[in-house]
């Protein structure tokens, strides 16, 4: 697996061993959102370009868009979130992943932050 990278929009992405990518929101972001009550997941096979809105997370407070940090095709969505949206709060960076995708341009990851830079970014 590749190093986990973070976007300025608070999504994380990681390239798996098979070359596909897993995307979710950061632990920092879930704390900001508060209690998550619903997630609108994208359709499978949808082609998405970097920074496109692919999912919506509804917390008690508000609705927030999830922007895809790299371009590619959606190949899997985390169906568990349909019944257990609170998984985003309890496990944002593990079991609460949102989608898996086949990236079209893995070099887009180079522009994203590593964990240390992201920690620095969110502490400002």
């Amino acid at each position, binding site marked *: 697996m590749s190093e986990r990278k973070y976007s300025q*929009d*608070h*999504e994380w992405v990681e390239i798996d061993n098979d070359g596909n990518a897993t995307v979710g*929101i*950061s632990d920092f*972001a879930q704390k*900001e*959102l*508060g*209690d998550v*009550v*619903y997630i*609108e997941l994208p359709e499978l096979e949808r082609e998405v370009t970097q920074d496109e809105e692919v999912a*919506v*997370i*509804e*917390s*008690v*407070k*508000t*609705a*927030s*868009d*999830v922007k895809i940090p790299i371009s590619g095709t959606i190949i899997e969505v985390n169906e568990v979130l*349909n019944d257990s*949206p609170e998984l985003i709060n309890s496990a944002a960076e593990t079991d609460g992943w949102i989608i898996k995708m086949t990236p079209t341009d893995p070099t887009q990851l180079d522009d994203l932050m590593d964990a240390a830079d992201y920690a620095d970014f969110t502490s400002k």
Partner: protein
Amino acid sequence: MKVDNLNQSLQRTALYEMHQSLGARLVPFAGYEMPVQFSGFKEEHLHTREKACVFDISHMGQFFLHGDVAGETLERIIPNYVTNLKQGQQRYSVLLNEHAGIIDDIMITKMDDGLMLVVNAACKDKDWATLQAHFGNELNMECWDDRALIALQGPTAAQTMASLNIDCSDLRFLNAKKITVNNATCYISRSGYTGEDGFEISIPNDDAENFYKQLIACDDVIPAGLGARDTLRLEAGLSLYGHELNEEITPLEAGLNWIVPKQRLAEATFLGSNVLKEQFESGVTLQRAGLLVEARVPAREGNFLFDIDHNQVGEVSSGSFSPCLNQPIAMAYIVKQFLQSDAELFVEVRQKQYPVKITPLPFVPHRYYY
């Protein structure tokens, strides 16, 4: 994800440092830097229904209208009576414009030396200007910027007050009194915005932090923020200014008929009374109603409602997820003919429609102490 940034020009309440030390998340609200949550929306919400929570609501305006004539004077711009209020009695009302639109919704309390008003934070300036324009020459008015306002809400609120030796046993819902707490002059009313039993305490700024600390040191009491306050008032079916109420909406459209006594309409001596009289006789077109969304997706303010033939029949004014009912709830303005019908209605959220059911308000029964 969007993350809020705080603007430096915001005002702070006397409890600002207290909130910071408790690790509250602070957000801009009506020009103030206010705590939106402490331990979490859901936890604070459920705790208020089960035990008691303390809320800083010092951003709200506290006005005092001096003199015996304050009541009859104020009655010129509100739809209900205040001259018949007994000492310590409190009443909900609205300030009206000439079109019977709502300038603000307010609480009025009769005290021995005049009327105490609690008004919405975002409306403070225009309310003050309205009162000045109407009564500036007749009434001596004060704006109590030197006072904090603290709400203690929940079924164990009365026990908590008793444990602090603050005697509220003589207060029933919508009654108030002047009392000394820690040597400070306070005004305590048995009222609130959550649907639960509870109190709102007006206390000098200098004494607020000490009192707040005493409250959160009590068993069963935790601090809560404006996030929980909003979902609590929504479950209680209570209107929020700027959402259910504004200057284009009349009290009859807002379903506040109980603050428009028929005799007042007959007398028609208050601002906007002719508009209300006509509306009362011919009926309103749109009316506020409660909605249960029969899906997991919360309907939000601005989402439109449709009938089965795709005709737009209403718009959501407030919507969130109800922690007590574990489903999305909303209030909306709906074409009146649909309110009593069995017509199937749908709310559109992000280009998809979900079934909704019109339901009587409140969503969660009130538990006031009468």
